[in-house]
């Protein structure tokens, strides 16, 4: 007696070669099923690291689509290629000494001013970020807006690969977020206050008590601790 899982196979084209892969696979799992051993272009498999950037075309339209390999479900006759890396210039700067002024991008990424406002970057972005808008915020010198709009960026590089003005949007956005966090954003005092409390010895007694408890007592305390969520 065997439990056989009926899996429907669909054709897809990886690097223009036809493979039959299970329906419902993602680009990554489909490639692995087809026998590709992935060392580059693969990462967290959770849609967060940006390593598996891919370009694909569907048989239903002529458009060029961009997506993350680990998040995009394959469709019949989809044509796929991975873009594991887009060559990207990185400005050299010292975060401690750089001036977070309006003209900071003129000195670091002057090619930003080549932006044609064509929105090709936003069309290809797998995170649905308003890339053109944050580039324009950079042109306007609005660091806060640029940092806010680019927050979900995972640096997959598809925008830079497609940009007709040859801008590397994500590196400029990274600079904006770093400058925003360091110089512009309001600082929360929580960390400083907590460190001071620790240095003042507020938690010494409690800590010493826990260290001196026998194992059973500590285990009991662990399972009796207050929770604000349900363990399932």
């Amino acid at each position: 007696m065997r439990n056989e899982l009926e899996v429907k196979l669909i054709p897809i084209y990886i690097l223009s070669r036809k493979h039959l892969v299970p329906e419902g696979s993602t680009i990554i799992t489909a490639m692995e099923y087809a026998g590709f051993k992935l060392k580059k272009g693969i990462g967290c498999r959770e849609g967060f690291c940006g390593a598996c950037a891919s370009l694909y075309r569907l048989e239903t339209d002529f458009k060029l689509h961009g997506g993350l390999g680990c998040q995009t479900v394959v469709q019949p006759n989809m044509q796929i290629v991975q873009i594991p890396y887009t060559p990207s210039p990185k400005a050299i700067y010292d975060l401690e000494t750089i001036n977070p002024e309006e003209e900071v991008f003129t000195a670091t990424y002057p090619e930003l001013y080549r932006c044609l406002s064509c929105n090709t970057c936003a069309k290809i972005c797998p995170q649905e970020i308003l890339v053109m808008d944050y580039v324009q915020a950079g042109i306007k010198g609005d660091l806060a807006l640029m940092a806010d709009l680019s927050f979900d960026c995972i640096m997959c590089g598809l925008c830079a690969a497609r940009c007709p003005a040859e801008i590397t949007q994500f590196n400029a956005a990274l600079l904006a977020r770093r400058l925003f966090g360091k110089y512009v954003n309001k600082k929360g005092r929580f960390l400083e206050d907590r460190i001071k409390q620790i240095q003042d010895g507020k938690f010494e007694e409690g800590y010493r008590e826990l260290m001196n408890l026998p194992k059973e007592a500590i285990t009991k305390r662990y399972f009796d601790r207050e929770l604000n969520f349900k363990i399932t």
Partner: protein
Amino acid sequence: MIKKAIISEASETFCKKVIELSGEIVSRCDQCGTCTGSCPMVIEMDISPSQMMRLVLLGDESVLEMKTIWICASCFSCTARCPRGLDASKVAEALRQMKLRKAIHYLHLEEIDREELKKFPQMVLVAAYRKLTG
């Protein structure tokens, strides 16, 4: 210096390409020189705007190597005054684009000091990139 103009099929193709790309009927130019007289940049140019129009009509591709087409600032003084209603600024733009669309840039960003760049109003960078880079 007298240069011999050789009209070949290639020169005809070049002339037609410029007419198509600029949308200007260059053959209408009667070499009156009004554009040259109006142009504020003419002192910095190697050939005058009239000469540029003439070279285009003769299909002489050496016009692409002239400084003239890059020093044109698109001020439209010639446009406003041409008695035949021609637009020499569009011809200059077409000639620039024939180079820029092959990624042969006139402006090289790497050569400009970044601190200097910061002094300009942003529109200078935007305009210079659009006109002088591909």
